[in-house]
């Protein structure tokens, strides 16, 4: 079925569902299933308490993703700023009244479930920047004044999240934003100047903003073995688990490091380690391969899209997803500091799963509306 661009916007819900890239959804399912298996193992061979709940969350996530995907892309364009404002407001709320979870202030308890505004913000930033640049011409983007506002809009939530304190999400927000600015066509020299300015800003940041535990994490990252019972313990145990897994691993449910609790947080941040311990290099590479396929899909979807809004949004989602995966795996291998970031689709956790599926919903929405042209002024209801 080949629909013309103008017809596509008027598709029925059924038609839109038909347009969804189902092989991508299948790939998500396969990857999430790997996660179920690992959570089953993390509970010493039991679906309870993690694997079963994760399945329910993934199912809910798929549902959410499909809903997001079939909503008209113009709706996302139109409400992008509103979405950003709401997320920012929630972020301010947690700053003052959020409940304390894991020593950091990140959650809003709505009784039935909790929401994590920083997760919402990851999506909002993508929507915001896609919305801001969707109609900008290259000449506009080339002007520094045109770039000033989005940088400020990016910096506000970044500072708020950093204050929570959540270094991982902050880095993710900023990096995703930078990538989108880059793709929107911001001049290279702006980035160079930005980078120099950032290095200049790191020194006061180190001195006044970062908390001791964050500094400690950064420092022990450089030489974890120096403090094997203290702060370096997590990284060291993770490396031992990985390394002892060898080429083919110790076998499903046989990971001694994971099952004897030497590996911390095995169901969340360090789940990749557990996989690599039980299935070895082969298993770890297989999962990375699955992720690579997902990246390729996201890349292709973005490039294939005819609207700049869709392209930017697609690449934003894909970049955020990539950074999440990369930082987590690099972290458990001792390549980057332990910043507390789950592995997308695999780690146990409700909010992260839902927000991730939301963003995949946007990606699929881009795919569904790949041939829709979005002209200037479309955001205003034309």
């Amino acid at each position, binding site marked *: 079925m080949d629909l013309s661009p103008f017809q596509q916007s008027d598709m029925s819900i059924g038609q839109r569902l038909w347009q969804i890239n189902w092989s991508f959804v299948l790939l998500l399912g396969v990857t999430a299933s790997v996660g179920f298996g690992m959570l089953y193992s993390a509970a010493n061979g039991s679906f309870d308490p993690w694997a079963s709940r994760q399945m329910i969350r993934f199912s809910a996530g798929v549902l959410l993703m499909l809903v997001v995907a079939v909503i008209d892309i113009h709706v996302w364009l139109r409400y992008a700023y509103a979405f950003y404002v709401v997320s920012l407001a929630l972020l301010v709320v947690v700053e003052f009244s959020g409940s304390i979870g894991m020593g950091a202030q990140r959650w809003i308890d709505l009784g039935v479930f909790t929401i994590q505004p920083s997760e919402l913000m990851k999506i909002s930033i993508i929507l915001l920047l896609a919305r801001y640049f969707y109609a900008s011409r290259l000449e506009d983007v080339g002007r520094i004044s045109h770039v000033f506002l989005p940088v400020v809009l990016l910096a506000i939530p970044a500072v708020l999240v950093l204050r929570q304190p959540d270094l991982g999400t902050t880095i993710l927000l900023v990096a995703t934003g930078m990538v989108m600015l880059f*793709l929107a*066509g911001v001049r290279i020299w702006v980035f160079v100047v930005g980078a120099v300015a950032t290095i200049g800003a790191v020194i006061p940041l180190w001195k006044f903003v970062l908390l001791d535990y964050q500094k400690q994490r950064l420092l022990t990252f450089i030489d974890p073995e120096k403090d094997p019972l203290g702060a370096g313990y997590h990284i060291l145990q993770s490396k031992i688990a990985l*390394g002892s897994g*060898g080429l083919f691993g110790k076998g499903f449910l046989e990971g*001694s490091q994971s099952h*004897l*609790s030497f590996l911390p947080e095995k169901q969340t941040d360090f789940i990749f380690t557990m996989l690599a311990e039980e299935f070895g290099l082969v298993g770890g590479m297989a999962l990375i391969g699955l*992720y690579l396929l997902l990246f390729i899909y996201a890349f292709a979807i973005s490039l294939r899209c005819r609207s700049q809004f869709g392209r930017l949004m697609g*690449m934003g989602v894909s970049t955020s997803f990539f950074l999440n995966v990369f930082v987590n795996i690099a972290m458990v*291998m001792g390549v980057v500091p332990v910043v507390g970031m789950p592995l997308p689709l695999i780690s146990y956790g409700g909010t992260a799963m839902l927000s991730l599926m939301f963003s995949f919903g946007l990606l699929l929405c881009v795919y569904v509306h790949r041939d829709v042209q979005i002209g200037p002024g479309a955001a205003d209801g034309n």
Partner: protein
Amino acid sequence: MHRDGDRYKTFSRRSIILFGGKIFLLSGLAGRMYYLQVVEAEKYKTLADENRISLKLLAPKRGRILDRFGRPMAVNQQNYRVLLIPENTKNIEFSLAQLGKIIPVSEHDVQRAKREIKRRRRFLPIILRENMAWNDVARIEVNAAEMPGITIDVGESRFYPNGSEAASVLGYVSGVSEKDLTGDPLLELPGFRIGKAGMEKVHDLALRGKSGTSQVEVNAFGRVIRELERREGLPGAEAWLAIDMELQKFVTKRLGGEAAAAVVMDVHTGEVLTLASTPTFDPNAFNRGLSQSEWKALASNPRSPLNNKAIAGQYSPGSTFKMVVALAALEKGIITPKSQFFCTGELELGDSTFHCWKKTGHGTMDLLAAITQSCDVYFYEIAKRTGIDRISAMARRLGMGQILDIELAGEQQGLMPTRAWKKKVKRVSWQQGETLLAGIGQGFILTTPLQLAVMTARLVNGGKAVTPHLTRQVVPFDAADPPPPSIPEFDTIGIHPPHLDLIKKAMAAVSNSPYGTAYRSRIKEPGFQLGGKTGTVQVRRISKAEREAGVKKNKDLEWRERDHALFVGYAPVKSPRYSIAVVVEHGGGGSSTAAPIAKDILLEVQRRDPSRGQANGSAAKRRAAPLTEVVKKG
């Protein structure tokens, strides 16, 4: 569409660069994974195993100590302990209260348990009580359901079935103290015991055995998940002693509550059949752990139970030394067996008067009569003529004034004075009066009961330099039958045999002639007769005034001021086999106190002699090496 062209070009170009960057980063991760999981895999596998595998030492069974007939003297018995495992109960106080209905649980116990719980992980057991009686164990087991977290555990602990009777030989085991640590991890096992005294200490290394190991898998909190490999240790070797436990018990009982010591040995082999020192102590108490008051009571007892008097008690030998003086005089030709001296009851030397124990005097005495009746004046006379150095030299040949290496720690060498010794130590010249005192075994001379038994053995075994020993064999725990003990060869001490025969004859007369000082303590059973010599040692100076007023009888004196009672003896008279030395501190007279004890013991040991087929405890004889064999070769 065209308007979008430049923008799209930039976007796609930059997207591709970006994608390239992602691929590059992912390759980096893959490389890192390869490095960790392939290149460094071995290192991390070792580290992972070190994490999960914990090596626990298994304490080996301590080897038994057996007497000469294989009767157990030190064994291991099951030690029932009550443990509390905190994680198995929701309410520790409730569980302890329930336990309190069966065994007394004090507030102190509850507090101690709570303190321990705070310090340690909740799955580690806390020892509430050790050495439980079987009754209580059974009642706890029956009621286990009502006391969550309370369990019974069986360990092994040292047990001395004859308690205190052999304490002086066995010694005891006790916990390892800081200074005992040698780096052997076995010593650091909680509850491990090592020999601290006696044979337990002498054979400690052999008795310990080899520790086993248990490889267990533990989790990050130290909880044992499962056992991976178990290598049982090797139980300790068994020590067979020369001691006859039944005789040892008899002797200890016979000495009663006196501060006394007795040594019985085989005159040919040097095997010590009994080494008793009273009062004794209960070695089981040391293993259990002494309370402060128990320790004080032991340490402050004037009869010093912790001192092994048989080897560490040094006494003037008194008249039991007279055989030594006689042999020295005979050897140098100063007297012949026929030489006579006249005893008036005293001997004057310079300004001093030396008294015989018999105020009225013995009249004309030859050597045989002088020993039989223990005439002091006769020995003053021959000692004066022989000289201290010759007497001392003879005493050394007979085993005195030296360490005899009886294995046990704390053995004393006594003292055999010479002129040179006095000059060197006291810085004054030897006085002739001191030689006279030495002639009756008083003055500087000091001997141990063990030395006296050895002296007697050498006198009656044909003049062989027999040395005493307590251990027959130390054999591996699984040895089928202990090999017969080797028979030691002893050199002769070079005394003219007729002289020894004369001494033996005189000693036989002491208890078998109506004139003898130990006639009342003779053995009447034919073939069992004993020979010996009494000794009574003054522990205070008798002043001239007192002597004139009439010397107080021992029973009228304070315990501390009474004479020591000694007896050395052998039996049977016809072919001497056993020698004995008995010392009763402040016991009164040698003939009244020590001789009857020695008689009873010598009678018992001969009755028990398995070569006569009269030993009891037949079940225990299973592995006994026959004594007769030993005798023939010795």
